[in-house]
């Protein structure tokens, strides 16, 4: 293919959705396939929508209101926000994903996202659906109010960085370790504004659940999107979700122009963590070994999937959590929860001393269900460890894989999962 016409995944999707060839740096007015908000950004979106005089949604069947961040609600103010959102869903006929029905990004992956879609959400981790080949990105309430009303939005076509993956994971090393390593390497603003596109011979070994974990954290390097090609594994995932018809293969063109590239040999990766209070402040589990932990959280849109429950249960099978360390597990969706029950993972986790909380964001953003006390240390499988993130600016948050989290729950100290596997 002619290099001038060869397109990155980002250019390709934006071209398809804006009715004309689009190259890096140009403004694209793109049609939106799916737009959503959640309960901490939704009320402002709805108020803006109404104040601008809009009455109808461009596409009610592709507009979703998620009640997941405060689910179930811890106080009357947030309960009133929920009422406000339910009323709007009633008035406009859009989809309501109510309390208990799961974290927005997990539900989008299971039920809604399609390769090649443009997805905008009033939540920064909307990038998660890039794991399925969707150009999915987070925006604020005003932008989403306009997307709700007009069914379109504007983008500057981003430059792309190619992340070339080779080799395969060693025992005890997972997708989470890869993305933490990458962010540590390029920095929390290493991909600001840009598209992170993943490619290379490592891709066919990465199941979609891994791709979702990786794409989910693209924003932690500042990226606008984290994009994977859509391939046979994408088809398999969609089939498992009962929507094989949503599959289309999609990949960047050969000869597409990348601003830069990063090579990662999966063989060389180790269990990796982010230290307080920045995601790019990374270290290996071996370096942090022995640091005492008060609370372990397994869940969130990054690592609350069935495979994560399986990994945690595998390590906690026949073991108990350390008495110093609370263990909170939040499946990301009812589907994950139900499957984890059927597979016996939940039984194993409860036997090990875990408390299971409802599908939702749980303690991730400091609203409820596991806010930290002064000077407490938490190890979480979430995606952010900013100061104050889990409800207390005087607490300390480490981020890691579900395996590292489970191993740490057993010993009460940061532990390399390879020691217990």
């Amino acid at each position, binding site marked *: 293919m002619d290099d001038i016409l060869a397109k990155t995944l980002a250019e390709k999707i934006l071209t398809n959705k804006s009715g004309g060839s689009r190259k890096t740096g140009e*403004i694209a*007015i793109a049609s939106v396939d799916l737009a959503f908000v959640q309960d*901490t*950004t939704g*009320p*402002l979106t709805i108020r*803006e929508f109404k*104040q*601008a*005089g809009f009455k109808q949604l461009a596409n009610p069947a592709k507009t979703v209101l998620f009640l997941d*961040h*405060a689910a179930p609600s*811890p*106080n009357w*103010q*947030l309960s*009133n*926000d929920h009422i*406000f959102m339910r009323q709007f869903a009633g008035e406009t006929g859009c989809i309501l994903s109510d309390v208990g029905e799961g974290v927005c990004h997990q539900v989008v992956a299971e039920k809604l996202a399609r390769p090649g879609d443009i997805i905008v*959400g*009033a*939540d*920064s981790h*909307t990038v998660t659906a890039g794991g399925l080949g969707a150009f999915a990105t*987070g*925006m*604020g*309430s*005003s*932008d989403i*109010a*306009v997307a709700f*009303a*007009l069914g*379109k*939005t*504007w983008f*500057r076509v981003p430059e792309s960085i190619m992340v070339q993956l080779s080799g395969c994971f060693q025992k005890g090393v997972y997708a989470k370790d890869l993305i933490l390593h990458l962010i540590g390497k390029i920095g*929390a*603003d290493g991909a*600001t*504004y840009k598209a992170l596109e993943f490619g290379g011979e490592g891709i066919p070994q990465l199941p979609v659940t891994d791709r979702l974990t990786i794409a989910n954290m693209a924003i932690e390097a*500042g990226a*606008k999107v984290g994009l994977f090609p859509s391939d046979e594994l994408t088809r398999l995932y969609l089939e498992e979700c009962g929507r094989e018809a949503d599959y289309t293969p999609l990949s960047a063109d050969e000869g597409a122009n990348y601003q830069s590239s990063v090579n990662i040999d999966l063989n060389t990766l180790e269990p990796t963590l982010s230290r307080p209070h*920045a995601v790019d402040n990374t270290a290996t589990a071996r370096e942090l070994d022995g640091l005492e932990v008060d609370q372990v959280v397994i869940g969130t849109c990054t690592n609350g999937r069935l495979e994560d429950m399986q990994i945690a249960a595998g390590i906690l099978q026949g073991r108990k959590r350390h008495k110093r360390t609370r263990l909170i597990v939040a499946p990301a969706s009812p589907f994950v929860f139900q499957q984890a029950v059927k597979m016996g993972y939940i039984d194993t986790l409860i036997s090990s001393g875990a408390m299971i909380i409802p599908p939702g964001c749980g303690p991730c*953003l*400091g*609203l409820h269900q596991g*806010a930290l006390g002064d000077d407490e240390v938490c190890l979480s499988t979430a995606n*952010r460890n*900013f*100061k*104050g*993130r889990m*409800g*207390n*600016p005087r607490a300390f948050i480490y981020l890691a894989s579900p395996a590292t989290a489970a191993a740490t729950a057993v010993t009460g100290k940061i532990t390399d999962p390879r020691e217990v596997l």
Partner: protein
Amino acid sequence: MLKGKAFKFGDNISTDHIVPGRLAHLRSNLPELARHVLEDADPEFASKVEPGDFVVGGSNFGLGSSREHAPLVIKMAGVSAVLVKSVARIFFRNAINRGLPVLICDTDRINDGDRLEVDMVEGRINNLTSGINIDFKPIPAFMLNILNEGGLMNYITRHGDFKV
């Protein structure tokens, strides 16, 4: 011409520093939420800031969440512009959508408490305390149109659509 005092912050001021998640129950009560603006970066900021003042940050300002409440409460505090070395994408877009200018410049040349004057047309910051002039990067044309209309909702109600 914008005029005011500089409040200096460091690198990587996240949306959790600006409006932490633990205050999510105040998001439908904006005047109350605004009393906590930047609380986790400087607990006294909200009581010290005066209309016209500037928030001056380092690199990657506003990283994190998509919560538009972050630029919104900064604007509600009377801040006339945010001056930074670099800005996170969503915060940038949200601030412009709210009619709050974000100007990218060398903030090492601004100290806490400096008196500044910003000429939006000339693209220049005059540091009245030190006498230094600092240029800022022009805001991309498409976003400048939105800013000049006073934010995205005004822009859309006026034009009914995006115009390229």
